[in-house]
Each structure stands twice: as C-alpha cells, then as structure tokens.
C-alpha cells in the first residue's frame, strides 16, 4: 500500500489519534486505580459506608 | 529560603488544584486569539502580519485577568496578615508570590503560544520569536501587575479597577515585546535592540514590583 507524497501526514494523523486514545484509556485506568486505593484506605481506617443512604447518596 | 520555597509551592499547588484558576488564563488566551479572526476576517496574510500583536494582547489580557486573585485570596482568609507579620521580608514574600503566579499562570501562556501561532499562520521563526518575547515579557507583566493587585487589596476593590490601574503600566512591555517579534517577521530593525530593552524592563520590574507592592500592603492594611 503506497501512501503517496503525503504519507507523513497520514501517518501523523493515525499516530496522534492512537496516542490521544491511549492517553485517555491510561488516564481513566489510572484514575480508577487511584479511587479504588483511596476507598480501600478509607475503609481500612474504619470509615464504613452506612447501608442504603450515606456514601452512595448524592 | 525555606519560607519562600514553601510560599511558592503552596501558591502553585493551590492554582493547579480544583478551584484554582491557573488553566482558565490559558483558556482565556486561546479564546481571545480565536475571536480575533472573526473580527478581522479569515485573511491569512493579514492575520500573519497582525499575529504578534494579537498574541501579545491576548497574553496581556489573560495575565491581567488572573492577577486579580494574587493578594485578594490571601487577604480574604487572613493569610495576608500572617505573611505581613512573618520574619520573611515582605518584599521577598511578594516576589515569591509573583513568581508562583507566573509559574502557574504566565508560563502556560508561553507554552500555548506555538499552537496559537499555527492558527495565525506564523512560521516557525516568527512563533519562536513571539514565544521568546513572551517568556521574557510576561514576568514583567506579572511583577508590575502585582503593584495594582496590592493596591486593589488595600482599597477593597478588584476587577476592573485593577485593569485600569495596571494596563497603562504595561504599555512599555507591550511596545517592546511586539516590536521585537515584528523585527523578526518583517524587519527592518534588528531583533536585538527591542529585545534587550524588553529584558531590561523585566529586570527593573523584578526590583520595583515587590518593593512597591510591599509598601502598599504595609501601609494599606486595616
């Protein structure tokens, strides 16, 4: 497959889209891990959610 | 030294956290620059010629916008009283606050400049010239603007009064900043002359700004 004289533009576009999507995925995954860790930390320190209302109530 | 480092770290941290305004300045800069072509028209050669002026005006307004909170936030929660009473000379504390403000609000403007240069069809040399003059010039804007911010706190008025106080003071910075960038793009004056004057203005503002701000804070608190 030849990309013609503008191959670099095509490659750059695809690379950029890949990069940004990967950053998004990485950010969301990292955020998930952080929040989970903080929740565990809080629960370990003896702060438990009350059933029903409480922490889930917003 | 620890005291000043602590002050800088705190201010940068607050600016970057939720509720801090560091990134709003950049967004404002971006918006102002994008609005210009709607007023001027999508005439690329014209935009290229006006580019440095548009970027400089945008940066000037953006740094002015965020200066409002420089002392006001500390005044409202009582921190300013403690800073004034502290053993660190107030002039140095003011300089540290201004430096922190520039790191959080001024430096991002410089970083955003290449992207905006692209929108205005500036070539690489022109963009780097504008970025360089902004890198040297925005600290001068912050340090002279700090005087206005200190006056605004002691007068209990912010916002527009600050703008009216500070904008005339920033005229020299604007003149030589735009002149240096234009010199690279169209000539005929060499880049060096206006640029060294701009550097000199910045250096002077580093000295005058903190002293004037500290003086107005010391005498204006109640």
């Amino acid at each position, binding site marked *: 497959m030849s990309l013609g004289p503008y191959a670099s533009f095509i490659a750059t576009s695809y690379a950029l889209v890949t990069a940004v999507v990967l950053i*998004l995925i990485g950010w969301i995954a990292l955020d998930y891990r952080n929040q989970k860790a903080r929740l565990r930390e809080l629960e370990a320190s003896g702060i438990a959610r009350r059933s029903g209302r409480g922490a889930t109530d917003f | 030294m620890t005291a000043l480092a602590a002050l800088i770290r705190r201010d940068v941290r607050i600016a970057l956290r939720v509720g801090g305004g560091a990134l709003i300045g950049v967004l404002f800069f971006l918006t102002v620059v994008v609005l210009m072509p709607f007023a001027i028209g999508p005439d690329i050669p014209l935009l290229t010629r006006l580019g440095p002026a548009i970027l400089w005006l945008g940066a000037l307004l953006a740094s002015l916008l965020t200066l409002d909170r420089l002392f006001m936030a500390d005044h409202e929660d009582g921190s300013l009283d403690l800073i004034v009473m502290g053993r660190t000379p107030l002039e140095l504390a003011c300089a540290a606050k201004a430096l922190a403000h520039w790191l959080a609000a001024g430096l991002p403007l410089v970083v955003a400049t290449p992207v905006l240069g692209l929108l205005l069809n500036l070539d690489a040399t022109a963009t780097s010239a504008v970025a360089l003059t902004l890198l040297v010039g925005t600290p001068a804007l912050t340090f002279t603007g700090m005087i206005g911010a200190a006056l605004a706190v002691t007068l209990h008025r912010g916002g527009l009064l600050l703008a009216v106080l500070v904008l005339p003071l920033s005229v020299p910075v604007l003149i030589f900043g735009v002149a240096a960038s234009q010199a690279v793009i169209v000539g005929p004056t060499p880049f060096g002359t206006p640029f060294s004057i701009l550097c000199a203005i910045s250096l002077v503002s580093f000295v005058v700004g903190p002293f004037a701000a500290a003086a107005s804070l010391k005498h204006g608190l109640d």
Partner: protein
Amino acid sequence: MTLIDLANPTRFLALTARVLPWLIAATAILLAAGLYRSALAPDDYQQGATVKIMFIHVPNAWLSMFVWGVMSIASLGTLVWRHPLADVAAKAAAPIGAAFTFLALVTGSLWGRPMWGTYWEWDARLTSVLVLFLMYLGLIALWRAVEDPSRAARAAAVLTLVGAINIPIIKFSVDWWNTLHQGASVFRADGPTMDRAYLIPLLIMAVAFTLLFVTLHLAAMRNEILRRRVRSLQMMQASRVAFSSETGAGSREATASKQTGAA
C-alpha cells in the same frame, strides 16, 4: 433494567462491571475491522492517499457533536428529571468529548495541509469545531472551578443546554462569515454520493469510535461515582474526628458509644 433501576449507583457499578469487558471486546474488533477496511480503500482520484485521513477525521468530528448531544440529554436529566446519575454522566463525558474534538481538529488540519499549504485555514467547518472545542474546555473549567460536584452540576447543565442551542447558530454564523471571504471547503468527501468503497469503512469506523466513546464514558462514570464516594467518606471521616476529639485522647470506639448514648 430501566433507567430508574440505574438510579442506584451501586447497581450501576455492578452493571458496568458486567458490561465493560464485552464493550471493550466489541470496540477492539470493530476498530480492527474498520482499520483493515480503511487500509484497503482505494486512493481518491483528487485527494490521493490523503483520503485515508477521512476515516479517522469524520468519526472524531461526528463524536465531537455526539458527545455534546449526550451531555445535553444528561443535562436535561439533571435539570428536569433529577436523575442522580445524570450529572455524573455529564461530567464524565466532557473531557472525553474534548479529546475527540481535539482529534477532529488536528486530523482536519493535517488533512487540509496538502490542499491549503498551511496547517490551519479559517475554513468554516474546522472553525466551528474549534469554537466547539473552546466550549468543551470552558465546560471542563466550570466543573473544575467548583469543589462540590453537585453544586457545579446545575451550572454545567444550564451551560451545556445553552451551548446545544447555540451550536447551530454558531455554525450558521461561521459559515456566513466564511463565505464572505472565501469559497469551498475540503471536507466534501462525506456527501451522500460517496462511493461504497469509502462509505463502508467510514461507517465501520464511525460505529467503532462511538463504541469506544461509550466504553470510555462508562469507565469514566464509574470513576466519578467512586470519586464522590471517596469524597463523602472523607467528609464522614472529618466529622468523625470531631467526635473523637470530644474526649481528647480517648479511643474512637469509646467515643462512638458515648455519641450514640448522648443522642
């Protein structure tokens, strides 16, 4: 499973955990198929191989609008139906939408570069997308400006809906502004007369990117729910500390029983 069932965040989290793996798999398969078909697509007689940029530009441009639509519905959910997950959905969508809009801008400018000779031309379509991008950034700034998310939610919802009404007006004004000065746009390849050789890969890519958004959005919503849980637990912890210090250095268990006794 109705919308009301989803109102319970715990149930939503359970649903997310079940659905996400399937969504990820479907997105990956469709993306692979779309990329494969795009690679096979022939060169355009006018644009040559650069037409390949279209396969990622158009889905991103579509998503930049679609995400705002999703946020508008979520905003209606916040303001009208008061659905508890609505502002979570709106908040989680904003950064993702901004990222796709950014990609639409960048791929658009890279696509136009061979035609225009510059990276940025104040072309009507790209310029409207740029304004949309600024609106996304403003919305994110609004979410970040207020520490309490439930307080920011209503302001953000109003802004989103005003934006949704304004987008067509902005689009019209920019078109009008642009035609005063210059002529045609590059972005014509997506007309209804497009060849099937382009249409099919483009459709697959559009569906794949939409699925990608849905996946990311669900995951981001889950994060946001957890973040709010952390926040409310922290607030409980802060007030718990107030109780425990009531007896000075006394143990927390003792204090807790004292509290319930006093109450």
